[in-house]
């Protein structure tokens, strides 16, 4: 049975945004939609957390933003991952994997 979509697990938003953008550049709503789709509706990302996160990540140089026309010919800001972003995604994923493995171990003990 499908539950109501929930907010993301604390502290994972930036990593997931980086992962999403590592496939192709996207605009804000595209990122939110893609994350919802891939998680099969388990997670919902609202603009109240996504837009500040994008602004923060762009500041720190992990992604780059650019105004472009969408496929429907509207203006939107497209974000692309940078080299720095890829590095940070790699290390964050590694950390995350370790933590998940540890949590599993505890839960199955």
């Amino acid at each position, binding site marked *: 049975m499908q539950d109501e979509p929930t907010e993301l697990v604390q502290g994972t938003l930036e990593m997931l945004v980086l992962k999403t953008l590592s496939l192709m550049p996207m*605009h*804000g*709503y*595209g990122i*939110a*939609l893609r994350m919802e789709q891939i998680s099969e509706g388990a997670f*919902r990302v*609202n*603009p*109240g*957390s*996504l*837009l*500040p*996160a994008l*602004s*923060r990540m762009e*500041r*720190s*140089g992990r992604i780059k933003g650019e105004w472009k026309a*969408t496929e*429907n010919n*509207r*203006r*939107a*800001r497209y974000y692309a991952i940078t080299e*720095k972003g890829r590095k940070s995604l790699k290390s964050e994923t590694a950390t995350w994997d370790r933590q998940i493995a540890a949590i599993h171990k505890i839960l199955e003990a």
Partner: protein
Amino acid sequence: MSLMKSLRAGMWALRNKHMRNAEIDEELRSFLEESMHEKMRRGANHEDAARAARAEAGSAAVIKHRVWNAGWEAGAERLWADLRYTLRRLSRMRGLVSVLVLSIGIGIAANATIFSIVSKFLLKPLPVGDPKTLVSILRTYEHGQCCNNLPAPVFRDIQHMAQSFTGVAAYDELVPASIGGGSKPDRIWGQAASANYFDVAQMKMAAGRGFVADEERAPVIVLGYRIWQQKFEGDPEIVGKPLNVSGHPYTVVGVAAPGFHGMDQILDPQFWVPLGDLGELVANSPKEESRETQWLRTIARLKPGVTQAQAAGEMDAIAERMARANPATDKDNGLMVERAGSLPARDKRSFMLFLVALSAVALLVLCIACANVATLLLVQAAQRQREMAVRLSLGATRGQLLRQMLLESMLIAIAGGGAGVLLSLWSTYALSSFRLPVPIAMDLSVQVDWRVLAYSFLLSLAAGLLFGLVPAWAASRPRISNALKGEDVLASSGRRWSLRDLLVATQITLSLTLLCAAGLFLRSLQHAARIDVGFRSRGVVMMAIDPQLHRYTPERTVNLLRGVLGRVSSLPGVISATTTDGVPLSMGHRSDGFQVPGMPKPRGENVVELYMAGPGYFQTLGIPRVAGRDLGDENPSAQKVGIVNEEFVKRFFDGANPVGHIVNGAGVRYEIVGVVKNTKSRTLGERQRPVLYRSIYQNVASDPSQDGYTLMTRYEGDPAPLIKAMQDVIHSVDPSLAIFNVQTMEEHIHDALFLPRLVGTLFVVFGIAGVLLASIGLYGIMSYSVSQRTKEIGVRMAMGARSQQVQTMVIRKGLRLAVIAILVGIPIALAGARLTGSLLYGITPWDAMTFTTVPCLLLAISLAACWIPSRRASRIDPIEALRTE
């Protein structure tokens, strides 16, 4: 990299706030549009899709706010807004703010002034190249007792043996010379240095060069920057010009860098000549070959990679080798390595102690100032309870209120720091005018430099935090329900002693301590000025000449002194005149160990002060004769004669008549021909020392004076024309003679009082500042308490209380505080007074006068501080007071 980027982006956002806002708006709108479009694609109609998209996203304002907050610029903007608000608030209470700023300013100025002394003498690096690798080498005695200069052979041994240094240089600390050029000859102080001195120091020169290797005995001179500016008007062509130095032709080869006055922080030499020439320039120059005459200061440059500890280790080894090679002179002596330019090690401890004590006092003043400001801010905070309560109920967090109030106190503190630095500019100027009563060149001036500025700034911040935190904490914690009704929650919680009372009591206690110290030092100064120096200081003028600097032989010197004395004695207004080699109370003079053949060892020390005296000495200084005859125009080649003081008789002859006895001072035999009353020799506060006055004409040849010879004249009438006439007499005999140290004996004694005056002045200033601050604080809380109790007082008066009674009630409350604070303060002040014992002249630390006057004075000031608010209370109109509620 990314930090810079973030900084740039943030700055851009702040500068182009509209554009940044528009950008966020547009991004949000595009997000919503895409979301809506997606929903329509799934089949929702336009209206539903728009509503759902907005509902999912939430409030646009909140999102915008959160995006803004993602960058640092939001914090900066809030800070800026707070700052503007605070400035606006402060500018609305100018009177209070100026009192607060002045309070902190006084506290900071006290500390900045003391720190300027620390900065100059302890922190300032030498103006030499790479001061970190320059060390000085000193000789220790009796297994490490600190410390002396080096004898010349020891210096040469080190130069040959030491491997730790790239160079070792030596210099004689102070050499007088008369320098020609300009309108009249001047006698100034300089140093004689080894030829490698400027290389070892790695000095940059303002012009020309230092000495080169083969100039050990060359007649070349390096001028100090100041004398170059003053005497030669900064002549750009000075290098290469000939210069008359004490009658010898020298050539100027360079000018030292501005601000350089040797390796010592206190001495103020103004020229440098090669060490090898010293014998030519000064009479009685130290013996080159003696391993006992310790006269050379030594600096050395560490080799790269060699630490000071390693060098010290090598010096220990060298000292051992020298002790084995010269057991007679070098046994038990060691060598010590110190950072060059640190204070003379033997004075360092007492100097540091003095500075620590002064700093403690200055910090005490700052504490009083902080307590004062905290009190006034607490009063302020109490009045702001309502505002705080309103803001808290409207959703402000306590952190926000705290931040804003701390900002306020920080601003006040920094403004106070600025005021303090301005005040300290003046106080360091005043401090620099103190002179030591010594005949040599010293630089004791202190300035406000960047170290003092940095210290003042940090201290202001710390003070701001200190006095801001308490009121801020208290104010941001109102009991909202009470505070909204306008009640003072801080004071009315039933506590008998509120925080404010405690702070004011602390101020009164501390300022009592300071004032008592000030009182003690003033009384001590009063006593010191009345100390019987043993001679009459009024009506004596003095001036000195140094004929040796003008190549006079001893015979010519004696003739010169005789001739000048004879002509000065016949000047109008002159009662009597005499010559001597040194003025008493100059902090030190020639002294020798004495023995009396045929008498038992003296009681106490055998060191005797030696003064040369011409005819009329005792008459001119007004020293009464007890026995025997006066010193007259003694024959230089006859048996040396001397006159001793009563202390000498007490010590060496056990009170018996010494006239006719021969005494032996360091190998020189004197026949005692008279006895005079005691006088003070080195300092005003000293225990009586034995003195032997010897004939000037008999000793110029065998023991020439290093300080020249002083003409002392007792006169009637106006000293100014007499001084002119005396100078004319000297110049009519020899126009090339430099005349120096022209002053009256009273001026000299004034300088001799420098220590009690300095300490007295400091404490009086600090004490008055403390009392001012404390009375402002007392006044502040009393008038606040009156304004808070307006209603109560109104009720009392409506019930029939007379204004007299109301006034008494207010005064009683304030005075109770003051009396308790004073009662607490007296034992503290007494304990503090014990520490001052060694600095006091003629009074005990428990001086009854001080400890009765000061508390009474403080009580009177407290009464005045309560009086004004109490008057206001007694004039409250009950009808008005009750209506305002």
